[in-house]
């Protein structure tokens, strides 16, 4: 079919263009200084165009490159083009492009600009890989690669100790998640007789629908739960769910555009994306789904609580990201619970994906907005040192307002509202979903509250520092992406019409849900206004939230214990026992015996004659009296 023929070229271009861009920049960054910047932006643009073109291609699963093939076992770099990947691709490339553009301004004076853009391209490559991945191993490969690019970008200002530590923390935390992810892959690999493709006749999806795994799920529920949770562990790491959420706030050490692209819109969403890709696994084991939903819910709530007490503007956004991701994960779990073991066609209009899309746009915009603010305030990030910015930077003000509204979910006009409704509605419908429903509502209220707080404190009142006083509107190159994103935010529901994947699933929404969320919104909004209107310092001061439930501290202790104490003890024991028994003891014995044997060579003739005689006696004794009785 023509579609099949057409397919490989576009996806492979989509995948490889950023790769070669990154490689070129990596190798030749000495030679082509700013050229490389434009290379990177250009490739981002092209990718965007391609993904738009792909929107109307048919589903296909072309193989792009060979990777491993042993006997009947094959793993290839392929592209699984379907609604889900098409939609995700569009998000990634569009926001990616905008962030590239924004960075042109934001990183203008930065010494490591070239390196920055190189890493951005690398990220685009890796993210594309995840989205297109047609099998679990390939997904894992790019899964780790986005980890790398995020590591590089968080540690962009590596001279700063905090940045260095943050990047390390991010990578390691993700590694722990990937540990589980890999186990999950291995389990499915073994159970499905070496096939880890999603599509295909004996691919996972089919196998779960009717094949081996279908029966296995029935016969061995425990195995399936384990597999599902292991896969989920990967998502927990990547999407920063409790208990592996600690890296995301620290990741804000990176340049703000990075936070917007990677740590708000796309990479962190990869976890959710993967869960939806593997929905069939979760759906095969309701108990796992339960767990997942709980984790999501807890994350949503806890993160929101933490957000209420942060003063760093970017951190507030980071925690809100956490909590929104919690929403999505919860949605995945809920939907699986609803399906309840019965298989169903995943993909179009998954509420989690829907929220992912909308959230991507407005959260990216919020971050870029905060970036603009920080840029204007000479890299001041504490919101209490800002204020009254609405006069100085009107455009940013407006766009930021739109973003905030969408995040709060102002009914009917903002995209955020719709996607949140979808999730709450799902929670409402699902049997045993009521706790999640109330968690959702509570989180919505908190969201409204802390966003109001942020908005009020940053934009209203008087400038609290002169850096805020002298703030001026960011240059056009940075403002433009804001405007576009704002439009998309408002328009992202109508835009959803463009392709099914974004259309909310359930048409009518229950009045209870709507009322509940509106009430929650109102409480949060007015509570925020009431508390923070015209304040110069935070009226309430909840240590527990401000210190993020002391999770980091606890982890710090654990890490210290393992990295230093345990490692030190093990090393000591290894040296003492293993080296002692295998190396030093034999050496010692040999030396002892040797020097003992030297005593025989005392040099005294009489001693020698005695020994010789003794020797004869021994030989006689052995030969005549011992050996015959021993026999052979």
């Amino acid at each position, binding site marked *: 079919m023509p579609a099949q023929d057409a397919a490989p070229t576009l996806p492979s271009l989509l995948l490889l263009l950023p790769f070669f861009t990154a490689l070129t920049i990596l190798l030749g960054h000495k030679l082509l200084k700013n050229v490389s910047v434009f290379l990177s932006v250009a490739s981002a643009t092209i990718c965007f165009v391609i993904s738009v073109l792909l929107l109307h291609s048919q589903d296909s699963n072309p193989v792009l490159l060979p990777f491993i093939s042993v006997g009947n076992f094959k793993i290839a770099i392929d592209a699984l083009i379907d609604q889900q990947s098409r939609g995700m691709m569009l998000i990634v490339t569009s926001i990616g492009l905008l962030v590239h553009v924004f960075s042109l301004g934001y990183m203008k004076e930065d010494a490591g600009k070239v390196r920055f853009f190189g890493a951005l391209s690398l990220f685009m490559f890796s993210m594309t890989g995840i989205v297109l991945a047609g099998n679990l191993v390939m997904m894992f490969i790019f899964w780790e690669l986005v980890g790398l690019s995020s590591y590089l970008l968080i540690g962009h200002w590596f001279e700063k100790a905090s940045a260095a530590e943050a990047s390390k923390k991010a990578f390691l935390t993700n590694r722990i998640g990937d540990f589980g992810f890999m186990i999950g892959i291995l389990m499915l690999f073994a159970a499905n007789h070496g096939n880890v493709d999603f599509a295909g006749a004996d691919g996972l999806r089919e196998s779960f629908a009717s094949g081996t795994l279908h029966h296995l799920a029935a016969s061995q529920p425990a195995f399936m739960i384990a597999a599902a949770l292991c896969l989920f562990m990967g998502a927990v790491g990547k999407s920063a769910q409790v208990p592996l959420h600690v890296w995301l706030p620290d990741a804000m050490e990176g340049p703000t555009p990075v936070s917007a692209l990677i740590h708000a819109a796309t990479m962190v969403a990869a976890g959710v994306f993967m869960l939806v890709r593997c929905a069939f696994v979760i759906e095969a084991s309701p108990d796992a789904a339960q767990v997942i939903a709980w984790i999501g819910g807890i994350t949503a709530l806890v993160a929101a609580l933490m957000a209420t007490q942060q003063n760093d503007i970017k951190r507030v956004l980071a925690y809100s990201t956490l909590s929104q991701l919690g929403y999505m994960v919860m949605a995945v779990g809920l939907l699986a619970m609803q399906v309840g073991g019965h298989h169903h066609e995943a993909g179009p209009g998954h509420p989690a994906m829907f929220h992912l899309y909308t959230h991507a746009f407005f959260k990216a915009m919020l971050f870029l907005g905060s970036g603009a603010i920080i840029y204007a305030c000479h890299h001041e990030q504490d919101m209490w040192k800002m204020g009254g910015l609405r006069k100085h930077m009107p455009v940013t003000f407006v766009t930021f307002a739109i973003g905030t509204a969408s995040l709060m979910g102002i009914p009917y006009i903002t995209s955020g509202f719709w996607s949140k409704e979808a999730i709450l509605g799902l929670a409402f419908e699902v049997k045993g979903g009521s706790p999640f429903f109330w968690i959702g509502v509570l989180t919505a209220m908190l969201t409204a509250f802390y966003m109001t707080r942020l908005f009020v404190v940053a934009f209203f009142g008087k400038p609290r520092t002169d850096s805020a006083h002298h703030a001026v509107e960011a240059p056009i190159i940075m403002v433009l992406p804001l405007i576009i994103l704002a439009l998309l935010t408002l328009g992202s529901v109508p835009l959803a019409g463009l392709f099914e994947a974004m259309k909310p699933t359930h048409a009518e929404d229950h009045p209870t849900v709507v009322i509940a969320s509106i009430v929650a919104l109102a409480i949060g909004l007015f509570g925020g206004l009431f508390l923070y209107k015209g304040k110069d310092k935070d009226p309430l001061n909840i240590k527990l939230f401000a210190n993020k439930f002391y999770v980091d501290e606890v982890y710090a202790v654990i890490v210290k214990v393992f990295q230093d104490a345990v490692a030190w003890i093990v090393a000591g024991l290894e040296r003492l026992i293993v080296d002692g028994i295998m190396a030093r003891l034999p050496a010692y014995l040999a030396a002892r015996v040797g020097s003992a044997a030297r005593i025989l060579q005392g040099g005294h003739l009489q001693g020698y004659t005695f*020994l010789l005689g003794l020797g004869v006696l021994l030989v006689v004794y052995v030969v005549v009296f011992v050996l015959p009785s021993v026999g052979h």
Partner: protein
Amino acid sequence: MSVFSVEIFLVVFGLALLCLEALVPTLTRRTLAGISIGGVALALVLFLFASKSGADLPAFVQPYHQLDTLAVFYKGFALVITLLVLWLTVESSAYLTKFTPGGNFSELFSLPILVCVGMMWMASAKDLITVFVSLELVTVSFYVLVAFARKSNLALEAGVKYLILGALSTGVLVYGIAWVYGATGALSFDGIGAALALPETSRTAALLGAAFLLSGLGFKVAAAPFQMWVPDVYQGAPIPVTVFLSVGSKAAGFVVLTRTVESFMATGSVIAAEVQGLLIVGGALTILLGSLPAMFQTSIKRLLAYSSISHAGYLLLALGAGSARFDLSSGGVVAFYLATYLPMTVLSFLVLAILRANGGGEDIQDFRGLARRSPVLALAMTLSLASLAGLPLTAGFMGKLFVFFGLVDQAAWGALTCAVIGAAVGFYYYFRAILVMYATDAQTAEPLKVATGTKAGAIVLAVVIVVIGVYPKPLQQLLAPVPVTVVAH
């Protein structure tokens, strides 16, 4: 022309040499050395022809001598080592001049020839009387040779120790012969073997005789627990004599031991199992007693003495745990091992002699910086030490390989363990010398004065070591059980 006539030629030549140096005092040492080396070389050539010609021994010695593969091999071996010893004597003339009265050691060019004859006769002896007389010819000459440099107290002490202990071992040997004779009524190896297969032969008496006999021979080949004389004597004796002892005398001892053991372990022998057990136990013990104390030695000569003990251990194991699985009888393996042992020992002693000639001592530290002073010699010495340690691609490894095969085939795990331990320890004490040679902090770095001929000789020996190590086929064929004296009549 038969091999026997070569031996007669050697006897005459030796005696002539004695008279010559006694009657013609004007004869310089160089010419004397030249003559004797030339004579032995000639004898070697003649011997090669004779052994190829396949002419049999004259009738009147046939009752006492045989000319099988081993005999031919060991006779040739004796000639070669004698030749090398004479060469070494020349190399270490400085030392000898210093420690012999009047600096006169011309007998050192004639006595070894008579010793050589004795060894050759031992190699082909068919009965214990022949063995005894030729063995004593060798031993008595060695009493003289060891104590030869008697102005050196060490040499003299070595002489005394060797004399007393040697005489003691002779006594044990004779007593053993007596009992073996008493038990079997035979003095020829064939007769003993045959008698041992008979049921009425008294087992205990035979065992007692075997025990004493093997003890006496064990002394000659430096087997534990009769090894205690070796370090002292090797260290005290002049270098050429030490080499002669550690290669020649040991080889001669082993050929007799081989014959004896073969007769004791002849098919159906009532004492085969005990003898084999004794050999394996003794071999293992020898390896340990040889290698473990060697770790502490500071004198290269003493070190090599201990190493020769541990090699004797491997030889005993080869003798005791032969494997019928490859083309070498256990005696053949022993011969093979000795053939590999010859070049490496001679080479290392040669380098030592050269160092002494250049004012060095016998301490390991005197090798310091040899790599700078003479790269070629250092490389040669490295090769010979590696070979002594039994590294692959050198001659020393092949011997060890056969021994390992035998042990595994006999499932003698204990002995195998000892062999492994010995070899592992060997890495330590051989490599110590290597490390010193290449050390960069040498006090003296001025190049060694080495005669081209000497250097060439060293290189040849080194090459031999490597060649046997990578291409053992010719040597092995030399020892293949098919007798060399085929047809011809």
